[in-house]
């Protein structure tokens, strides 16, 4: 198996039972594994809610370390829609030409730097700076702020071994509190100020609501983008012919981005809480217990995707659920897609090949399932065209 491969640990259980089981902080989870069921459950918010106790639909649960409700993520319709409408246009800004030009400049600079060096550790020296700098565009704040986020390293927001350790998460929460204070004192054109100034159902968003949106924007867009970028570099290192294909047929870049995102599924799954006794695949789900929508498993469902374990860059029909499904689908997807599209364009233009020197996989454990989601470390050498 190639080093860049992301195996599917769910196949057998998906075929045989349709659901997996895991336990976590004494709050068990029924993992929904089939494409059709994942979409159905994501759609049925009346039965499978997001608006549970803050932190509970995240896996591992953040109930012990967070009180702030993430918005619009931990809300259900119709409230969800009201908040989402407030920010939707803002999250579409990556479609603007000026935004795309700046992003392209950033990614060109990062690739140029990588080309100039003997060896690059992709996660910390390529993907983290790329993600952080790009986020300054999404928040519309000065580029220099990225240095702070880069300095946090990749293991911020959550203690790897102890989901009950508050100190990591507090780095982010305290930081956002300070930024909100500043935006109150000196309003500008940034996302904090825009949120502080917006109104919902006749009242101004309060501080806790603004904080809820900002925590989500930071947390939701960090590891996901870092893994997507890192895994793309690993993939092209293993598949120089794919880089050549994009060079020759730039028209397929959009499809290639969707296919890589399908294959990587940077967010493995996300929880919901059952509002009533119900069932999934004939498996009983009790009221007030958790299920998870396993995007990673659904993306490999052979009843929907031909050769699901292969990357087919110009896959034409690709109803993947890496960005979720239905009303909670990813708000950051426009930004994430633009990052990957630009990355592929710049790589195709400037990079001949990438040598994989050393890799250390990042393997998640969900009950008995072990899933590779990316890398802790990956050392490469970039060869210029």
């Amino acid at each position, binding site marked *: 198996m190639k080093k860049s491969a992301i195996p599917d640990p769910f196949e057998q259980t998906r075929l045989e039972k349709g659901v997996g089981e895991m336990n976590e902080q004494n709050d068990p989870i029924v993992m929904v594994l089939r494409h059709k069921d994942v*979409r159905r459950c994501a759609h049925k918010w009346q039965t499978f809610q997001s608006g549970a106790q803050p932190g509970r639909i995240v896996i591992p649960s953040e109930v012990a370390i967070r009180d702030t409700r993430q918005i619009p993520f931990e809300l259900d319709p119709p409230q969800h829609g009201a908040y989402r409408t407030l920010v939707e246009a803002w999250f579409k800004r990556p479609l603007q030409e000026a935004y795309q030009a700046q992003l392209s400049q950033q990614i060109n600079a990062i690739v140029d730097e990588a080309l100039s060096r003997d060896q690059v550790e992709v996660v910390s020296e390529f993907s983290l700076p790329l993600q952080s700098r790009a986020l300054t565009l999404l928040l519309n704040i000065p580029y220099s702020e990225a240095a702070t986020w880069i300095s946090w390293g990749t293991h911020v927001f959550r203690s790897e071994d102890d989901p009950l350790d508050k100190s990591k998460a507090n780095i982010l929460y305290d930081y956002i509190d300070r930024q909100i204070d500043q935006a109150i004192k000196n309003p500008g054109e940034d996302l904090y100020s825009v949120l502080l100034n917006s109104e919902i159902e006749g009242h101004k968003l309060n501080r806790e609501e603004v904080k809820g949106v900002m925590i989500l924007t930071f947390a939701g867009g960090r590891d996901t983008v870092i893994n997507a970028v890192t895994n793309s570099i690993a993939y092209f290192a293993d598949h120089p012919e794919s880089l050549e294909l994009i060079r020759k047929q730039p028209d397929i870049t*959009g499809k290639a*981005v*969707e296919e890589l995102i399908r294959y990587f599924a940077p967010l493995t799954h996300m929880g919901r809480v059952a509002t009533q006794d119900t069932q999934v695949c004939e498996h009983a789900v009790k009221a007030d217990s958790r299920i998870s929508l396993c995007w990673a498993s659904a993306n490999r469902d052979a009843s929907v995707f031909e050769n699901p374990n292969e990357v087919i860059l110009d*896959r*034409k029909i*690709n*109803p993947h659920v890496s*960005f979720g*499904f239905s009303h909670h689908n990813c708000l950051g997807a426009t930004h994430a897609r633009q990052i990957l599209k630009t990355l592929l364009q710049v790589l195709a233009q400037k990079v001949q090949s990438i040598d994989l020197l050393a890799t250390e996989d990042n393997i998640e454990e969900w009950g008995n399932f072990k899933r590779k989601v990316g890398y802790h470390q990956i050392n490469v050498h970039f060869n210029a065209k």
Partner: protein
Amino acid sequence: MAKITFITSDHETITVEGTSGSVMQLAVKNNIQGIDGDCGGVCSCATCHVHVPTEFQDKTGKASEIEKDMLEFEDNANESSRLSCQLDISEALDGIVLHIAN
């Protein structure tokens, strides 16, 4: 060359011409309101949902199973629903009128 008319949910009527690509791409290029084409046309976002009036349905043909499964969960979906990224532009579509779902 095909002339395609879009009627938006605000009842605005816009006619544009296209020669190749998908109807979604043509709509996005012309900034037609209600067609976003987020996924670029691979059938994973449904932000390209249109209704095809009965009289034009033999021009477009039928939705594939995968497209139908996607539409099943969409607001405003009915018998006449299609994802416009799955409609390739050709002479056959000349004169068609499409109602944008969202």
